[in-house]
C-alpha cells in the first residue's frame, strides 16, 4: 500500500513537472489538436518502437515551438491556421500484435476522439490498425511500413509517406544502370538472386526477379536458403557455379556474416554484391567483418550524410541524440517517423479544420518539397492509393568500413567503386 502511494505521489510530481513545462500559462490557452500514434512500445520490437516515439515527440515539440529549422511547419508555434493550436500526440502500444493494434486504434478513435492516426511500424500491425481507421473515416498516416500490399487495398483514408519494398528494389536496379553508364563500364547481364526464404527475403526476391525480367537481365540463379544456417557451403557452391556478374542478396545478420566469410573462402568475386539492407546495414556487420565488409552495396532509407540536401539534418540529429537514452543517432526508422508528424501537421493546418474528411482532402493535396524534409526523397505527394510517389531509397557502399552514400548522385558522398576487387587482390 505504501509503495502504491509512493509511486502515485511520484507520478503526480512528474506529471505536474511535465505538464508545467509543456503548457506555459497564458491568458487564452490555444486549443489542442489531438492525434493518436500506435507503436510497438513493448514486446520484441520495443527497442525500435521507443525510438520512434522519441522521434515523433521531437517533431511535435519542433512544431509546437518557436525555434525555426529549415523544415516545413517547424517553429511556427503550433498550427498557425488554427490559431496556433498545439499538436498533441496520444501514444498507444500495439505490442507488435495485429490484434492489439486494432484494439487500441478503436480506443483512440472512440474514446480519445483523435482526429488522425499515425503508425505503426510493422506492416502486419499497420494492416489491421488502418482498417479500423478506414471504417471510422479517420485519416491514417503510415511513416514506416514497407510491405507493397498496404496501399493497394482501395482505402480512402490511408496515406503512406515511405517508399515500399518494390520501389526500393527498383532503386537498386536504377542505381546499377546509372553507375555503369556514368563510369562507362560494360553492361551487366547475369544476375543471381540470393535470399532467406521467409516473408522479407521472398518479397524482395520476387520484386527483384520481376524487374530483372522486365529489363531483360538473365537471372542465372534464384537461390532461397533457410535462415540461421550453421554452414553455407552448398549455397556458396551453387552461387559460384552460376558465375553471375552481380549477386542481389537479402539476408539477416547471421547469414550475411557467414555468407561473406564463405564467399571469401571460396573466392567468389562477382562485379558487385547488392544487398537489401537488413543484415548488411546492422552495425554488427562492419564490426564483425572489418575490411572484409568493404565494397558491399546496400539500400538504406536515410543517411546522416544528407546535410548536403538539408542543412537541418545534423542539428535535428543532435536534438534527437540528446533525448535518446542510448545516445543513438537518427536512423532510417526514426527519421521517417519524425518526418510523418510534419506531413500530418501540415495537412491539418491546411485543412483549417479538425474534421477528418477535411484533413483527408488536405492530405490528398499534399505537395512537399524534398528539401523541406530531412529525407533523401524528391518530395511527398500521394497518388490515388495514398502512396507517396516521390519517395526513393539511397544506395550506400561500405568503403573503409564506412557506409558512404553513392546514389542518388546528388546526395552522394563518394563515387561507387565498381567492380569490387577480387578477394586475393585486396
Amino acid at each position, binding site marked *: 500500500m505504501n509503495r502504491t502511494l509512493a509511486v502515485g505521489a511520484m507520478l503526480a510530481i512528474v506529471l505536474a513537472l511535465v505538464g508545467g513545462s509543456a503548457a506555459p500559462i497564458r491568458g487564452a490557452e490555444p486549443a489542442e489538436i489531438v492525434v493518436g500514434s500506435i507503436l510497438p512500445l513493448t514486446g520484441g520490437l520495443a527497442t525500435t518502437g521507443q525510438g520512434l516515439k522519441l522521434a515523433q515527440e521531437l517533431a511535435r515539440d519542433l512544431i509546437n515551438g518557436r525555434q525555426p529549422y529549415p523544415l516545413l511547419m517547424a517553429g511556427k508555434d503550433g498550427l498557425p491556421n488554427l490559431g496556433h493550436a498545439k499538436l498533441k500526440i496520444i501514444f498507444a502500444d500495439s505490442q507488435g500484435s495485429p490484434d492489439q493494434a486494432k484494439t487500441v486504434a478503436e480506443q483512440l478513435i472512440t474514446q480519445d476522439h483523435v482526429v488522425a492516426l499515425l503508425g505503426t511500424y510493422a506492416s502486419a500491425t499497420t494492416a489491421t490498425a488502418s482498417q479500423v481507421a478506414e471504417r471510422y473515416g479517420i485519416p491514417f498516416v503510415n511513416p514506416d511500413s514497407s510491405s507493397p500490399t498496404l496501399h493497394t487495398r482501395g482505402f480512402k483514408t490511408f496515406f503512406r509517406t515511405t517508399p515500399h519494398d518494390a520501389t526500393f528494389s527498383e532503386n537498386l536496379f536504377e542505381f546499377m544502370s546509372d553507375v555503369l553508364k556514368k563510369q562507362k563500364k560494360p553492361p551487366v547481364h547475369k544476375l543471381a538472386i540470393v535470399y532467406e526464404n521467409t516473408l522479407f527475403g521472398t518479397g524482395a526476391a520476387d520484386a527483384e526477379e520481376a524487374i530483372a525480367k522486365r529489363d531483360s537481365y538473365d537471372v542465372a540463379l534464384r537461390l532461397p536458403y533457410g535462415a540461421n544456417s*550453421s554452414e553455407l557451403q552448398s549455397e556458396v*557452391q551453387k552461387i559460384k557455379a552460376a558465375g553471375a556478374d552481380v549477386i542481389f542478396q537479402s539476408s539477416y545478420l547471421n547469414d550475411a556474416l557467414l555468407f561473406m566469410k564463405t564467399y571469401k573462402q*571460396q573466392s567468389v568475386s562477382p562485379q558487385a554484391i547488392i544487398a537489401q539492407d537488413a543484415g548488411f546495414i546492422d552495425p554488427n556487420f562492419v564490426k564483425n567483418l572489418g575490411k572484409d565488409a568493404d565494397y558491399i552495396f546496400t539500400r538504406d532509407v536515410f543517411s546522416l550524410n544528407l546535410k548536403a540536401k538539408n542543412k537541418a539534418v545534423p542539428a535535428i540529429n543532435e536534438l534527437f541524440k540528446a533525448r535518446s537514452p542510448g545516445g543513438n543517432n537518427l536512423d532510417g526508422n526514426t527519421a521517417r517517423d519524425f518526418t510523418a508528424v510534419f506531413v500530418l501537421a501540415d495537412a491539418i493546418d491546411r485543412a483549417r479544420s479538425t474534421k477528418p474528411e477535411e484533413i483527408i482532402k488536405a492530405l490528398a493535396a499534399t505537395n512537399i518539397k524534398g528539401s523541406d524534409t530531412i529525407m533523401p526523397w524528391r518530395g511527398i505527394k500521394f497518388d490515388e492509393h495514398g502512396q507517396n510517389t516521390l519517395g526513393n531509397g539511397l544506395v550506400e557502399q561500405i568503403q573503409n568500413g564506412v557506409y558512404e552514400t553513392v546514389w542518388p548522385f546528388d546526395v552522394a558522398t563518394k563515387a561507387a567503386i565498381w567492380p569490387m576487387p577480387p578477394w586475393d587482390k585486396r
Partner: protein
Amino acid sequence: MDLGPLPQLVVSGILTGLLFALISVGLTLIFGVMDVVNFAHGEFLMLAMYLTFGLALVGLNPIFALPFVALAAFVLGAIVYRLLIRRLLDGPPSTVVFGTFGLLVFLQGAAQYFFTSDYRSVPNPPFQGTLHLGNVALGEAQLIAGLGALVMTALVFAFVEFTEPGRALRALSEDRVAAQLMGIDVQRMNALAFGLGTACVGAAGALLMLTYPAFPRVGTEFALTAFVVVALGGFGSVQGALLGAILVGLVEVLGGFYISPALKLIPVYALYLVVVLLRPQGLLGRR
C-alpha cells in the same frame, strides 16, 4: 574426367563434419557414462566462444587460446556437475531433462544480459588465406578448424581407450553396478566425464571462432546437429560420433547442392530416420 564441383563439395562436407564431430563427441561421452542428455551442451559452446573472443581481445590467437579454453571448460563442466547435475541424478529421469533445459535457458539469458545480443568476431582473425588444390578451394581457417577437431577427437578417443581413467569411464558405461563393485568412484568419474565432454565443446568453441561469430543463441544452431549426430553414430560411441558427424556434413553439403539449399536438412534427417529404423542403437552403438 571433369567431376565439376564434386571434389570441392566432398572436401567442404568433411571439414564441416569434423567440427560437428568435436561438438558431438562431448555430448556422446556424457551420455555414455551417465545416461544424461545434456540440453545445455550448445550453451557451453557459446560460453567457450565468448571466452575465446575475450582472449582474442587481449591478443591471443584462438589456436593458442584453445588449451586454456578447453581447460576452463573442463573446470566449468566439473563444477556444473557437482553443483547441479549430481543433484538432478537423484530425481526421476525427467528431472535431468528439465534441469539441463533450464540451464540452457539460464545460460542464454545470462549471456544476453551480460554480453548483449550483438555478434562478436575475433578482430583481425588469423588464417584468412585460401589454399587452392586444383579446383578445390580451402579456407585456411576452415582447414585448421577441421584438422584441429580431428586431432582433438583422436585425443579423446585415445584417452577413453588407452588410459586408466578412460577404462573406468568405459566400465561405468558398460555396467554401472559392476563398475561400482570394482571400486570405481562414480561421482569422480561422472565429474570427469562431464568435464571432459564440456572440454571437447570448449575446444570446438575456440576452433569455431576462426570462422563464426559468437552470440547468445549460437549454441542452439550447432546443438541440434550434435543431437542428430549422436543418435546417428550411436549414443555413447566416440567413433560413432566421428562417423556420424562426417556423414551429416557430407549429406548436408551434397544434398544442399544437388537438391536445394533450402531443403538441405531433409536428406540429413531422412538418413537419420532410416538409420534409427534399421539400427535403433545407431551405426556404432551397442544395444
